[in-house]
């Protein structure tokens, strides 16, 4: 890639993971595609996916605040365009 910035920093890796992990948890359907255990009569497939909607929030919030922290460190706000 002919678009070098300062290279990947360790916080960048963390940022990527904070988005990648929730994405994979939701995307890879085979692991949650089952009926049992049910919750109040609701199959696992249904209630687990609804639960995932809540599970992703702390990941996204961590991403948000880590970015804010990074940006206050860089005066130009990270825009390199």
């Amino acid at each position, binding site marked *: 890639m002919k678009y070098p910035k300062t290279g990947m920093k360790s916080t960048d890796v963390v940022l990527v993971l904070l988005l990648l992990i929730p994405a994979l948890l939701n995307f890879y359907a085979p692991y949650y595609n089952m009926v049992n255990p049910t919750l109040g009569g609701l199959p696992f497939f249904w209630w687990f996916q609804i639960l995932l*909607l809540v599970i*992703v929030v702390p990941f996204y919030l961590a991403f948000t605040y880590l970015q804010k922290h990074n940006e206050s460190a860089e005066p130009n706000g990270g825009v390199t365009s």
Partner: protein
Amino acid sequence: MIGSFIVLFAIFTFLGFYGSRWRRGDMGQLNEWALAGRRLGATLAFFLVGADLYTAYTFVAVPSGVYAAGALYAFAIPYVAITFGVALAFAPRLWKISKEKGYITGSDFVKDRFESRTLSILLAIVGIVALLPYIALQIVGMQTVLASMLVGIANNTVVEEVALIIAFIILAAFTFTSGLRGATLTAVFKDILIWLTVIVVIAAALSEIGGFSHVFTPSLSAKYFALSSPQLPAYMSLVLGSAMALYLYPHAVNGILSAESAHKLRLSTSFLSIYGIGLGLLALFGVLVYAVPGALAMVKSFGSGLYVVPALILNTLPPWLAGVALLGIFVGGLVPAAIMAIAQANLLTRNIVKEFRPNMTPQGETRLAKWASAAFKFIALAFVFVISSTYAIQLQLLGGILILQLFPSLFIGLYTRWFKKEALIVGLLGGIFSGVYLVLLANHFGKLITSVYPTAVGSIYIAILSLGINLLLTIVLSAVIPRRAKAEEVPVPPTKVSTQ
């Protein structure tokens, strides 16, 4: 029931008109009408984007799909969870670059970034066209609500036709007068009604039925419990394609750019998946309906799964409350449709017409935008007739196939300039044409009932297949085409020349 519907609709209309005066800017200016002057804080941005994203798709199309085809259409739940991650990766960067350079559409960005007027115009055209079926879906949603209230007045066919005409007129009038400010204010109102509806209906239905264990009984078809193995590739590709596509829509870009700061944008986005819980519960209504005989009978009398949620509302709530709930769904189609139409008009005037008539006055621009948005709604109406109503969700999926083709230029382009403009143009066209062709092929050139195409590894959402073709063309051509020292297209203003 109709009484409470009308009273609340009057309040809603008032908010729409009031909204056009609220925090008033100069409404003759296009970015005032269309971007609310870029002054929305985290809370309002949350509601605006929420209104963009939770639409008739959620209230009508997804439950209908689940009702007819089962767990497959639950893909909307993980799609919502992932799409906000995609948004976090790209939207704040788009916001920052746009703020710095004064862009108000995705086309503005692409034009400057790749120094290509052609690419920018193409992007605007694809954005406008991709929104047409999405708007059509909102019209279908509004029609469904009205028809379910008018049932019994005449036969169902007549009721549906009258409902369609009324829905269309209300939409056109609303968009014309309110602009994005009005839509945002009404979005807050809409969301309150929606949450109320979801919670009340699920509580009422479950107490009547006696819990989910009476819904998911052994007599219910297995397709409602979980996916069959052959459905997995379709499911996963629908999740991925939808999640990557959502924030490429012009109205979503509008939502992004009207935020007050990048941090506020991220913060509101982080919480948006919570909204998906409502979507998940509504999807379950498609199963729940089988346990409520009165509602099931109504759905069957219309012969369309679209009536799942309205029928459950009418059969489990007292009439006055049913009116409130139905209004929630009605404006749940109306507000997003207005926001989408505004985004279309914005693109047309700013990125297409102005390219050829640069001397337009701001007043002339706004007038054109308002009339264009009315015209686009008529074209959208045509899409209502090319689908089988139970599978109205295909309208949104069709929009997704088209809009996802902007991914390389609009999103990947935020992080790299390596792509060549010619490559992006060829890739975009390759993606669009292959997408449309595969859709026609998958549906045997008839009514739209599917958006997946059978491949060697199973059925895959066409958006993903076409994006593959698009990316392949873009990457190969970018590698092959030699880089020129200077841009060939003269009319591009020399904003910032690439230094490579």
